[in-house]
């Protein structure tokens, strides 16, 4: 019988085998197709494993490579939490790899044998990191695999000195993060243990879990230090303030676009996974009272808000497509941290309502993790498409691309609206859940109300930034650069298809958030023993696929109703427009008769939001 654990292990091995094959193959296109097929094959194993866990519950951990004398064992365990992140990884990897096949043609000067092997290794490392229970050696191995392959992917375009620098920064920061996290593991480990007659090594997650109770009572300072180390280590990975800005905004634009999509969509999410796993699942429910959840909740949600605000404020002044998106990755991570922080803070109160709201918040964080993966990778693919057609990342040079690539524009519009939280798209659905958890949680922890409010405020900044991103590139007046230097044709279908897939998913989870939230509920229910598991016991989100989602008396939304109303009233609008039988006529723009339509009189990305940018001028230093 193929257990989920074996299935994930096979997926990892497949990726590694694929890395070897693509390293040997020379042909550009063949390499791409092989890499894509291997990704699909691994995704099938990953989906099999994950859905098996979500539907039938988790099984026991399985040990693969064990070496007792070195204290070394690859113990793989797929529970609901891992499954949720694994689904995300596979879902983003498939469109990114498909996009790569055609996209990589535009790097004529570079050899793809520096690309496909590393990206498959990168994927293997992420699958591994999300399923191993070893907090030391295999954590180290997978982390290094991810770092090294990421390093080579970021410096793929090595003729550009900035890319080399970005990859070096990435390498250094990831090594620090690795060291800090392992230091944390060393501090918190309490010796060997056994579970169900299986001897566990001292750095195994379950072994640590068995000793955590005594450690929390006997050495509160040491354990607090260890948790701080985890927060810093994973915080560096996921781009938390103040570490995010050091490496993330340089690394994302440097990498080829499909890699940026994977970096932002999946890789930084392994940091989210780490924080969730270590902060919410490490301490068992019966020992939860010993864990200073009150303070960690405050710290994480505060850091989340600072990350959110500083990331988004800095994004507002960016004029390079991928750099703008990278700063928004930092910003959106802030939402996720706020959700996690609120959940931890609320778990302190032994009150059923607090537990429910905590579950709403953490479900929101998990949902936003998934949704951010969808729309951010789509946005990076959009930016890649723009780059492919125009060879520039500079928003000031772009404009009016909708007439050249209308289909890409549609997907980019959906993604931009999603990340800004416009209903009925998926970004709204997950932000809603975080807001509800945080703001209603203010009954117990009052500071969550202002924090939730700042999150609402920041989503306005996000909207502003994406109105600029989408407007300056696809809409607004066509620039001289675009009309002279670009190929006037829509992209190849093989580049459009992955974007349409992601856009469709954004719409689907926006209109039917029920499916996402039900998946999360079963992920929480089927997660490993740990405090997080008790969130699974809460009956969240009544309602249904068609009626919408809500919980108890607190809140209820029905995106489907909004869509139905929008469609009906749009039809009414069309009817009204046709009433007068007015005739269409094409004409020139009205520029008061004395301004000519040239580039000097064009309003470009740099000119947007001057006054607001002045207010947030100080954010550059943060």
């Amino acid at each position, binding site marked *: 019988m193929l257990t989920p654990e074996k299935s994930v292990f096979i997926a990892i091995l497949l990726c590694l085998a694929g890395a070897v094959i693509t390293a040997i193959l020379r042909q550009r296109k063949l390499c791409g197709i092989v890499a894509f097929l291997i990704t699909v094959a691994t995704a099938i194993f990953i989906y099999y494993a994950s859905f098996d866990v979500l539907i039938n519950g988790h099984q026991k951990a399985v040990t693969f490579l064990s070496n007792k004398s070195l204290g070394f064992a690859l113990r793989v365990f797929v529970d609901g939490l891992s499954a949720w992140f694994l689904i995300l990884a596979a879902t983003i990897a498939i469109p990114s790899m498909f996009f790569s096949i055609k996209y990589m043609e535009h790097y004529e000067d570079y050899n793809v044998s520096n690309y496909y092997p590393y990206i498959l290794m990168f994927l293997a490392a992420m699958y591994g990191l999300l399923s191993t229970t070893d907090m030391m050696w295999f954590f180290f191995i997978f982390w290094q695999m991810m770092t090294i392959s990421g390093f080579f992917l970021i410096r793929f375009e090595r003729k550009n000195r900035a890319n080399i620098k970005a990859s070096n920064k990435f390498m250094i920061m990831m090594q620090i993060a690795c060291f800090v996290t392992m230091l944390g593991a060393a501090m918190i480990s309490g010796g060997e243990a056994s579970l169900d007659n299986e001897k566990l090594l001292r750095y195994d997650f379950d072994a640590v879990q068995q000793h955590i109770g005594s450690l929390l009572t006997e050495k509160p300072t040491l354990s607090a230090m260890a948790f701080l180390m985890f927060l810093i280590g994973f915080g560096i990975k996921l781009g938390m303030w103040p570490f995010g800005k050091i490496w993330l905004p340089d690394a994302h634009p440097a990498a080829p676009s499909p890699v940026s999509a994977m970096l932002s969509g999946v890789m930084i999410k392994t940091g989210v996974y780490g924080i969730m796993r270590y902060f919410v699942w490490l301490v068992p429910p019966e020992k939860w009272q010993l864990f200073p959840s009150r303070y960690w909740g405050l710290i994480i949600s505060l850091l989340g808000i600072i990350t959110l605000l500083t990331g988004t404020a800095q994004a507002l002044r960016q004029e390079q497509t991928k750099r703008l998106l990278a700063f928004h990755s930092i910003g959106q991570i802030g939402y996720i941290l706020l959700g996690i922080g609120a959940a931890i803070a609320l778990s302190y109160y032994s009150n059923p309502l607090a537990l429910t709201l905590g579950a709403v918040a953490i479900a929101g964080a998990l949902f936003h993790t998934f949704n951010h993966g969808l729309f951010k990778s789509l946005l990076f693919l959009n930016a890649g498409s723009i780059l492919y057609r125009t060879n520039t990342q500079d928003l000031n040079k772009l404009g009016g691309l909708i007439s050249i690539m209308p289909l890409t524009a549609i997907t980019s519009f959906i993604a931009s609206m999603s990340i800004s939280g416009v209903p009925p798209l998926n970004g709204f659905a997950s932000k809603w859940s975080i807001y509800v958890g945080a703001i209603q949680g203010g009954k117990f922890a009052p500071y969550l109300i*202002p924090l939730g409010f700042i999150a609402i405020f920041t989503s306005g900044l996000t909207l502003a930034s994406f*109105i600029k991103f989408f407007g300056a590139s696809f809409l607004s007046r066509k620039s001289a650069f675009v009309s002279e230097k670009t190929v006037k044709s829509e992209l190849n279908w093989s580049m459009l298809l992955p974007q349409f897939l992601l856009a469709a998913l954004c719409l689907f989870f926006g209109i039917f958030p029920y499916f996402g939230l039900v998946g999360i509920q079963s992920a929480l229910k089927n997660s490993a023993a740990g405090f997080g598991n008790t969130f699974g016991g809460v009956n969240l989100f009544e309602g249904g696929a068609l009626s919408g989602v809500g919980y108890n008396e607190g809140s209820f939304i029905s995106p489907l*109703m*909004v869509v139905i109303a929008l469609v009906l009233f749009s039809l009414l609008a069309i009817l009204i427009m046709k009433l007068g039988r007015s005739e269409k006529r094409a004409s020139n723009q009205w520029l008061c008769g004395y301004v000519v339509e040239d580039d000097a009189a064009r309003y470009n990305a740099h000119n947007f939001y001057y006054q607001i940018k002045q207010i947030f001028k100080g954010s550059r230093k943060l």
Partner: protein
Amino acid sequence: MMIKILSALTNVVIVLAVAPLIEGIMRKITARIQSRQGPPILQPYYDLMKLLIKEDIESGESPSMQRFSAIMAFASALTVVALLPLGFGYGLSSHTDIILTIYLLTFCGVCTLIAGLAAGSTYSLVGISREMMLMIPLEPILAVALIIAATNSGSFKLDAVLNGSIYNSPGIFPISSIIILVIILASFQAYAQRVPFDISEAETEIMDGPLVEYSGPKLALFKYSRMIRLVIYCALFIGLFVPWGSNLMFPFGFLIFWFKVLLLVLLVTVVAATHARYRIDQAINYFAIMLLVSFFALALASIGL
């Protein structure tokens, strides 16, 4: 469910019928304040009908996107109307909560932004940049009011929020609610998009900003949706701060509601007719202060004051 849908549709029909009338009253009063005769009260109806038969000039960069934005502007405004309790029953308000309402209002604004971007004119881009900058503080200020009411009632559902629960603070005196009431009143011209905060349109300066390249039926839809949005913000204000009497028996509650709308519109008109437009930087500084004070009010509310 049938009753809810019917009541929502009734609200939509009533708003569609009344919104131009409100505009007409505003124009008449403005004219009188400025010692002019002014157009007939029914003029906005004539304007809309006239625009529908006028030529539809496609002068922007991406006509299809312009068409889409005009349709969405109208549809999104009506969607909000269907989801809000507007005098005649609760509509479909059980299918939405305060957060969805805030974001749907944002969506209405986004349609105008897309309209300006799609037109691609320098004037329209100046306009949408200003409009977006004003939206950044305005939506959160409204959010503060809704959150305070929701915190007091313990629920995000609209029927629990739009019934005066903003004054039911656990403390002795609802300080935070009074502060936010003052702030919303002081910003109401901006929600109504009237002088002194109609900076994004500024006819005399950037020629209607986002709408400069629009004519004929598309312009009719935008004008109509703007009138509807004024009613929406009035309804939200009334629901939040002066809900009394709206729940009375049929003709009374209904009439009281529209009477209150009329009073609020009068206030807006008088302020608009007697003030000059602010510059965008002045407005942004003004709202930055408003936003900070409302944040302070929210902080007070979160500790139960």
